[in-house]
């Protein structure tokens, strides 16, 4: 068993990066992820990693440097948040389109304007369509564990796509909790040696990255990308199984909490899921059949499996800590797609919460579950999309 320590989410991720010992890290500081690279810099300074740490002048440059290093044949990692990810956006597509398995820690933070440094999922959801594998984490332990798994999934020879591991800014990145580490040699064996595919540094086999592809072939490239990321679903499960063997901690495509016979289900991502589980317990104690689904793999999205897990629910409340203004929240759209595609038609409501780091309290979950109970009784929902805890 690995050692147990009380540590912040950022420190846990930095520790994971230290154990991975990537070839290159290029980064630019931004709250609340700054601490990850700062701690990592001290590992570089202490000589405990062999990483080339590149400190650049912007996130656009950071992702560009990661792309260059990855194409050259290195194992590459970075970390960012919010506007940093937003500024990387065009490069995120380059990394994915070139099939470069870069791993990134995204410490979720709200987007400007107005400026806000606290946690919500607007940044991650805003890069939903960039063809990065996205794995969300409830707490520091999950973030730590997910980083190793993300590296494995991204680098899998049938996938070769970049991956980001998300955790909630401040709520997780800056709060201390007790978690368990893996011994270094276990990590080393688990992630294995990095085998570059078509590296630029293989001078005997010259390759070209990024040539022009016009209408004659572009769509074929994009379909190939879709097929590749879809394969990540199976690989995620395979990697999770292997991870369980070395860690004793089990992961899936999502977490099902008291869902089996649930007539009422809620879907909650990341840290708020921890809060909501307690509330689910309280309702269960009262004999109300409520369950919770906490998505983990958001891209690719496991539609069939999610629909299956939510199958018994007649009423579903989907919580979104991000918004798609003028539309439903991004998680709601996925859950709705999953249910429709599976041919079931539960009543589904969407509740936007916690934007800009507004606290998500047990009472918030309670109020929504109460509403869901009412909907289950009447079969009717009055408002599909609503914001909770808003001062009017």
């Amino acid at each position, binding site marked *: 068993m690995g050692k147990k320590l009380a540590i912040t989410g950022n420190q846990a991720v930095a520790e994971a990066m230290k154990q991975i010992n990537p070839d290159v890290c290029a*980064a*630019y*500081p*931004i*709250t609340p992820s*700054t601490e990850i*690279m*700062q701690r990592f*810099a*001290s590992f*570089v*300074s202490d000589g405990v990693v062999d990483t080339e*740490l590149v*400190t650049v*002048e*912007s996130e656009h440059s950071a992702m560009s440097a990661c792309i260059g290093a990855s194409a050259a044949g290195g194992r590459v990692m970075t970390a960012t948040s919010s*506007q940093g990810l937003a500024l990387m956006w065009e490069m995120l597509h380059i990394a994915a389109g070139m099939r470069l398995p870069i791993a990134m820690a995204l410490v979720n933070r709200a987007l*400007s*304007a107005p*400026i806000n440094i606290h946690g919500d999922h607007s940044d991650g959801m805003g890069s939903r369509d960039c063809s990065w594998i996205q794995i969300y984490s409830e707490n520091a332990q999950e973030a730590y564990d997910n980083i190793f798994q993300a590296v494995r999934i991204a680098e899998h020879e049938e996938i070769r796509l970049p991956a980001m591991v998300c955790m909630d800014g401040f709520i997780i990145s800056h709060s201390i909790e007790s978690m368990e580490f893996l011994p270094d040699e276990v990590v080393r064996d688990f992630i294995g040696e990095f085998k570059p595919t078509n590296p630029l540094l293989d001078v005997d086999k010259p390759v070209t990255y990024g040539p022009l592809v016009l209408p004659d072939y572009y769509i074929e490239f994009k379909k190939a990308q879709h097929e590749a990321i879809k394969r990540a679903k199976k690989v995620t499960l395979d990697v999770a199984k292997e991870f369980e063997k070395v860690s004793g901690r089990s992961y899936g495509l999502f977490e099902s909490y008291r869902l089996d016979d649930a007539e009422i289900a809620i879907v909650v991502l990341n840290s708020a899921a921890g809060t909501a589980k307690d509330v689910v317990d309280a309702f269960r104690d009262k004999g109300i059949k409520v369950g919770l689904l906490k998505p983990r793999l958001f891209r690719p999205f496991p539609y069939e499996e999610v629909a299956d897990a939510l199958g018994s629910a007649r009423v579903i409340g989907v919580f979104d800590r991000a918004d798609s203004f003028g539309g439903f929240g991004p998680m709601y759209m996925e859950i709705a797609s999953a249910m429709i595609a599976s041919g079931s038609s539960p009543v589904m409501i969407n509740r936007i919460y916690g934007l800009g780091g507004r606290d998500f309290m047990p009472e918030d979950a309670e109020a929504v579950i109460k509403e869901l109970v009412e909907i289950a009784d009447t079969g009717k929902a009055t408002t599909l999309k609503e914001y909770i805890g808003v001062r009017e």
Partner: protein
Amino acid sequence: MVTSRDFEGRTPAWCPGCGNFPILKTLKEALAELDIEPHGITVVSGIGQAAKLPHYMRCHTFNGLHGRTLPVATGIRLANHAMPVIAVAGDGDCYGEGGNHLIHAARRNVNVKLFVHDNQVYGLTKGQASPTTMEGVVTKTQPFGSLSEALNPLALAVALDCSFAARGYAGDTEQLRHLMKEALLHKGFALLDILQPCVTFNRVNTYQWYGERVYRVSGGHDPTDRIEAFRKALEWGDRIPTGIIYRNVRPTLEERIPVIRDVPLVAMPQAQVDPDRLMQGFY
């Protein structure tokens, strides 16, 4: 009569002793001395400790994104070139993340006054090397010392034929007030790089460090002589010149855009715009 108290804003959340305090105070005084009213000026900033300055002033303010101060200020100025526009930025903001914008603002000669609070560090994110951090200076993310040569903003400005390039020091507010006023009165883009001790995260370039090195350029320095200005701009080390390093007279961006040359865009009553006359303005 306008007084600096008219610009009084919220209480700053800077560290005690921060070089930003004298810069803020001096800016308010300079504006009062020029008889500019709070509603008669716009202060634009990005993100950083320096960029918080507009929060602490009472006037038109715009707080945008890290690095993007100058493009926004350019837009504001072109919409209303009757109103003076000050862009406030940190060294990281303006020389790093948004460095490209500086080049083009100087090249276009947009009539915006850029005041850079140059503390030679990223203050807000707690002490990483900025483009003006001196080579070899150790920070938390540059454990082996900053690997790159520091950017020399004044040499860059002279090379770009920037129409006004000056250096001030937060510890010499008398000169700083004069430089701010000169920049505001100058016709064209003005870069005022202000050396600003960061008492928390820059333990190298302290008040003492600057105090021992800065000196006011003498009356003998001719800021209109570009080669001489370049020579002055290159001085950095044991002696650091402050004052107006370089200035020239060339048309501003607003003067080069025929449709707004005579009347600011906001003052143009839409109904009165005759499309034919407007088109003629382009030829």
